[in-house]
């Protein structure tokens, strides 16, 4: 099996928005920043598990919809005074398609 799995087209993810990829280890959120950069994180806020895919994207961060923690899309780390990390999923773009690392995508637990 290949190391990367195609999960959809770059155009499927709205700018400043996100889409969910359902995976065995829990949902994965794929985000697109204003500049078009794509990121993938486990869709679980390190605070109390809020679905980050439902948050607001700004710069290269997302604000969690439950209690407004700000999470870096690049690292998954909580910003500012908060501590915790949402697991980052390796992502590649090729020919307009979004590829996620198979090992993490298919892992049972994050």
């Amino acid at each position, binding site marked *: 099996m290949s190391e990367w799995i195609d999960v959809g087209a770059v155009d499927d993810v709205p*700018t400043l928005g996100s889409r969910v990829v359902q995976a065995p280890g829990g949902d994965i959120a794929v985000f697109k920043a204003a500049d*078009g*950069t794509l990121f993938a994180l486990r869709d679980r806020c390190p605070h109390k598990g809020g679905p980050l895919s439902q948050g*607001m994207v700004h*710069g290269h961060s997302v604000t969690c919809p439950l209690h407004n923690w700000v999470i870096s899309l690049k690292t998954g780390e909580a910003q500012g005074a908060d501590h915790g990390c949402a697991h980052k999923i390796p992502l590649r773009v090729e*020919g307009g398609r979004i590829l996620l690392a198979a090992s993490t995508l*298919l892992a049972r637990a994050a």
Partner: protein
Amino acid sequence: MPKKLVVIGNGMAAGRVLEEFFERAPRPYEATIFGAEPRVNYNRIMLSPVLSGEKAYEDILIHDDAWYETNGITLHRGKQVVQIDREAKRVTAADGTTADYDKLLIATGSVPFVVPIPGVNLPGVVTYRDLDDVNTMLAVARMGGRAVVIGGGLLGLEAAAGLKAQGMDVTVLHLMPTLMERQLDPSAGYLLQREMEERGIAVRCRANTHAVLGETHVTGVKLDDGTELPADVVVMAVGIRPNATLAKEAGLETNRGVLVGDDMRTSDPDVFSVGECVEHRGICYGLVAPLYEMAKVVAAQLSGDGKAVYTGSVTATKLKVTGIDLFSAGDFNEAKDGQDIVLRDVARGIYKRIVLKENRIVGAVLYGETADGSWFFDLMRKEADVSAMRDTLIFGQSYGGGSSLDPAATVAALPNDAEICGCNGVCKGKIVQTINDKGLSTLADVRAHTKASASCGTCTGLVEQVMALTLGDRFSRAATEPMCGCTDLGHDEVRRLIRAAGLKSIPAVMQELGWKTSCGCAKCRPALNYYLLCDWPEEYEDDGRSRYINERIHANIQKDGTYSVVPRMWGGLTNPRELRAIADVAEKYDIPTVKVTGGQRIDLLGVRKEDLPAVWADLNEAGMVSGHAYAKGLRTVKTCVGTEWCRFGTQDSTGLGVRIERFMWGSWTPAKVKMGVSGCPRNCAEATCKDVGVICVDSGFEIHFAGAAGLHIKGTQLLCKVAGEDECLEVIVALTQLYREQGHYLERMYKWADRVGVDAIRAIVVEDREKRRALFERFEISQRKAQIDPWAERAAGRDAHEFDPMANFSLAEAAE
């Protein structure tokens, strides 16, 4: 006998290869070149000046006939190669001409992408790629008339500007929210759009073309939303596709383009490829700079230098429309973890943004002043460490210290007739003049003489800015609490300036008010979205990406990521049909909890996000709409049963509550608004702890407001007493509208009332009949677009991406 080189495609890349090649002596090959275009090689990127009339074809020639002769090149012009026989090493053109090769170079460029919609084959639909296209456009333009350009990228905008210069009426249709979104961020895209519009070119973003109209010739286009635009010519400029068909048919490896290695050879070592038709390391280029770099390598390889390699290019874009200065470099997709440096010069319409990563420039966007573009580009390509000059980097190469940004620029740029104080209708010019004429120096004096900020006071900050501007150092203004880290302006100032400067989009606000970040943050974006929606109800398109999840998805997120759904029950009334529908929905979708809320309605808790549209469709079916239980907007109007049933009732409190709710539902407000109507002072509807509460009495209605029963408990204050239901509704609506217009985002009604003062509010919504009426009418206008049930829209498919997962691998097995 010298070996033979055959070149397919006589465009910019091929031309450059031959130039480079013949500069190297000795020449090991004899060259033959096939070009589908019936002419010599010309500078394709200069087609736009030819279209606009600034240049003629002769001015943009690269190689004239003499050049081919001098270099002993056989040029087959107007001959399209249709076959490559790699066995026989021979190419054949459409007219039967053949040529044998030892080495072959494929340089077929790219072809315009044509959106497959009805009508695209009609005469009058043109692409923009070569001189023939330009001549077709010029022929139409000569007759005047209307042009529609589909595509707001580099090519589309250059075509639009050219056609405009030729005297046509031009409209650009662009699918995305901002122009040139690949190269520009929304701020620069906004400035570009403004400039195009100032030149008389109409721009429509988020415009999806549905069909090209016409019987025998184009007559117009039709958009998805049903709009029809007349057109005598339609220019299709939505993108390009590498022209790899011929190579593919010859059995060479292709993907999007012809695949080449770093040595620019295709999968056949005797066949090279160069230009826009190639795909190198996964990238297909669409600009000339990379082609020139490739051309050097091809020439070197052909001359026997097997070590020459091409390793990819960093690209920069400039728009060639006279008078528009725009520069963009770097692939923003690479800008992960980027840190932004942003500079906006409001007065001069300048925007600059540099993206840094690990102290190196990875991207730059410059608008309005591009002199430093090449310097940034150079630093970027060299991957120079810029940490030492980080603080002044954005000011450019020649920055020598000194003052740079004037925070008062926004106010300085306002015209004299811009209204500063809305309550008293005082404009900037009046304030400046009064200060000068009367020698005023304090805010109190200015208030006394001009009335500016003398009523609700929300424009105080702005009046102070005008004073600072007029008086210079003689005036120091109190600091206002900024809206968020992206700006120094407070909520009031932002709100006033949105109106005074006529700002109608988020990028417009950020640019004109000098935002310090490129696209705001989670604090300011929802606020701006609300302010714009409130101030321009007819024009502004709601920006879902600037809303909190509950408002974006029209349901309330719960702690486990499921949602709760609350249908509206007008005035707390329901009936068997609605209750049955609710019961059915709860069973059908396995909704775990059904609960009665404090606002007299029913909450369905634990709905899966994917199920939301179906749940809504079922509820809609039974006549129910969204209860906006998630909204910073009108939530509920709680009522008691009043004269209908209660022995103490003095008025039809239920009927009034239903009427208010029917009139006001769907409206967005700075923070949530809850109302109540009680049929007598026993107050069973708890009206006196609501944002607005009515207590019915024998002689009429007491209107109370500014209460709350949340984090803070606050009893309401009496606003006024009115005799009839109509007047009661008018006052409540006017009050709410005033709050909508003055409230800070997330500021509850009671906090607004504390800030502005109950007397000031009463003076407008109770005592001034004219203002009350005007407020009422503004509310009515904004309701036209607001009272569309968001559930019905989504049940019908709007924003489907919010609800559906993009992919599902949840049952997949991990590879061992």
